């Protein structure tokens, strides 16, 4: 000890050529870094090409608005001085006709028509009709009256307000539409009339149904996970296979089995009628409505709750419960105050996993949801595949993504993401 104390303490001092030492260290590790990087390059490229770029371009579509600026830029610019409700001046109509007669490419007017149609229904046919008659217009007479004669919609201030509002390569109008809002003729943002509000209701339904499904999976999954965790490993593993079995079955098969079970003339209703619990005329509607969506999704998402719960519960030693009981706690108090708090990381992980999966769920509500069991993702799919309004689909998707991120942030603030255990 004494001998050690007399030794000069210089171990932590770097030699004079410290810089070159650092450089040498970096150089010696560079090869390893490059090698590690090369290992992940294929995956990185794969994700970049198949995931990040498409998602990015999709998100960009939610604000992308090139049609008006590219096809009728001067008309749109002139609308800056226009005041509703009268139709714009002859100058504006003159410019419009000139621009429509020389589009940047043959398909441009069609795209423009579709784009304005998103804002004002009927605009698409209006533009097509007008485009066909452009050549027959009398260049000596005022275009204003001629166009209004072709279709009186040319006098509609809403049409002109829409064109005016789209006079920018980037727009928030898809997001307005996605939240059931619109601009009135004066360019002010206001709610859609009640009969045309659909997305907010759908968002709300998506969130509360997802929350309800999360709660159901928690209530059903907690006891199962507990049982799996306390059983001897052999029996536990056997039961775990039963939990995992649905994972190995096609989602479509599972969903359609629910149709077989739950439909009005399905197995469950037959059984209830046979048992005399309900009469043949009063068969319960358990599918093609919210109930169907909830039942099928709860079943399908259950493993995502059970697995994180199980992995956390497995680590909680039974001595904690024994200790609590020896200290005077009843079975219930010991469970509630000692066991449950220790499962919270698993509950949090399972809940956030199920909830995030649920708010983006598409196939199951599409098949068993009927009319009122549809979720927002079904609407996104509709706009992607049927109405082809990709901008609106992208805006809805972005809102969903934003909601998940907000949720993640809140969870991180409340619980701490590092406390989350997925297994």
């Amino acid at each position: 000890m004494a001998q050690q104390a007399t030794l000069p303490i210089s171990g932590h001092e770097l030699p004079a050529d410290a810089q070159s030492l650092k450089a040498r260290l970096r150089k010696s590790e560079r090869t390893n870094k490059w090698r590690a990087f090369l290992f992940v390059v294929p995956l990185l490229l794969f994700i970049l090409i198949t995931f990040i770029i498409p998602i990015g371009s999709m998100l960009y579509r939610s604000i992308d608005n090139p049609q008006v600026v590219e096809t009728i830029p001067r008309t749109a610019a002139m609308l800056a001085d226009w005041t509703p409700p009268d139709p714009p001046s002859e100058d504006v109509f003159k410019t419009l006709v000139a621009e429509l007669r020389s589009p940047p490419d043959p398909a441009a007017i069609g795209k423009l028509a579709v784009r304005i149609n998103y804002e004002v229904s009927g605009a698409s046919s209006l533009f097509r009709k007008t485009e066909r008659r452009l050549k027959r217009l009398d260049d000596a007479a005022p275009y204003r009256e001629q166009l209004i004669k072709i279709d009186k919609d040319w006098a509609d201030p809403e049409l002109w307000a829409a064109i005016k509002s789209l006079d920018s390569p980037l727009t928030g109008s898809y997001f307005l539409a996605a939240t059931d809002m619109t601009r009135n003729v004066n360019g002010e943002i206001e709610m859609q009339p009640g009969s045309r509000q659909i997305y907010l209701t759908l968002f709300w339904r998506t969130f509360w149904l997802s929350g309800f499904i999360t709660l159901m999976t928690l209530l059903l999954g907690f006891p199962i996970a507990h049982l799996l965790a306390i059983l001897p490993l052999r029996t536990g593993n056997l039961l775990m296979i039963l939990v995992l079995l649905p994972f190995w079955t096609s989602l479509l098969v599972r969903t359609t089995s629910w149709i077989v079970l739950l439909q009005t003339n399905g197995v469950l209703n037959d059984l209830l009628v046979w048992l005399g619990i309900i009469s043949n005329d009063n068969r319960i509607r358990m599918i093609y409505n919210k109930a169907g969506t909830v039942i099928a999704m709860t079943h399908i998402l259950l493993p995502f709750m059970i697995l994180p719960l199980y992995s956390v519960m497995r680590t909680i030693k039974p001595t904690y419960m024994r200790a609590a009981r020896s200290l005077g706690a009843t079975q219930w108090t010991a469970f509630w105050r000692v066991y449950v708090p220790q499962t919270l990381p698993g509950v949090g992980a399972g809940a956030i996993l199920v909830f995030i999966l649920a708010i983006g769920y598409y196939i199951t509500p599409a098949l068993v949801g009927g009319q009122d069991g549809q979720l927002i993702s079904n609407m996104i799919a509709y706009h992607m595949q049927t109405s082809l309004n990709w901008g609106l689909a992208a805006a809805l998707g972005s809102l969903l993504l934003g909601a998940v991120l907000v949720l993640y942030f809140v969870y991180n603030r409340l619980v701490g993401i590092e406390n989350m255990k997925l297994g």
Partner: protein
Amino acid sequence: MAQHEGFVRFDDVQKSYDGETLVVKSLNLDIARGEFLTMLGPSGSGKTTCLMMLAGFETATHGEIYLDGRQINDVAPHKRDIGMVFQNYALFPHMTVAENLAFPLEVRGKGKAEIGDRVKRGLDMVQLGAFGNRRPAQLSGGQQQRVALARALVFEPHLVLMDEPLGALDKQLRETMQYEIKHIANNLGITVVYVTHDQTEALTMSDRIAVFNDGRVQQLASPDQLYEAPVNAFVAQFIGENNRFSGKVKRVENNTAEVEVAGHLIRALPVNIDGAGDTTTLSLRPERAHINPTEPLPNLFEGRVQELIYHGDHIRARVAVLGTDDFIVKMPNAHGHDHLQQGDDVRLGWHVDDCRALDA
């Protein structure tokens, strides 16, 4: 010390887990109020099962368990008012140290002020007054052990059970904690039932020790009796070191047994033998054998030193004698002791009383 009716009483208690074999075979045990009793035995000897039956986590298959005169076989664990310290402390990881200590008081519906007061006293008792706001994971093993102890004592139980509480600590800390637990138990006057497989721990802490093997109490005695007067070969072998000879009893008279070992006659104290013709195990503590004794001894044999092992406070000599070559003799490293060399021829001697003739 031993009262007529024990504070804790096992009356013909049996326990079987599978319905085929008995883990505990007919346990009869009386523990006096204020006593520090240790259940000592190898793993699988049934000692922990007995403790768990007393705590209420296992049910006795047969027999009765009494606490303070009341039969408690069917009393739920949380109604027994027995403090317990677990092997790995079982401190609740999601609560602070103070919350851990407050837990037994809260479930008993104590007032806030009283809880705060008692928690503070409990922490002071184990010298952790400043650690109330820490989480168990932020404490060292020894500190966690103290918290577990304080938690088991904070609700003032009359009986505290400890299940190998020092098993996870290193040797030095274990020794400190042994004294600390002993002192606290003495000061509070509580009854302690302590389970361990560490004989040193049992010897230094206990008033009485119950040595378990094969589901039975082999011997129930104070530490000194247990060490100096083991009643059978298992206890002799399990507690402390001992030199053993197997032999045949030739004659028993005047409280002396003559036992033939490797062609020699050893005079031993008959403890657990039936009489002449019986086979026996002779047990002799290494410190009771004398090398080159100056006084005349009834047992005196020629041997040769095989190995000398230096232990600091004492030196151990491995000697070949009476047909065995691993006879151990402990020599204190005292001023003027004999300096032996490997290969030296020596005489080994011992008293009749120190050599006990036990069951085979």
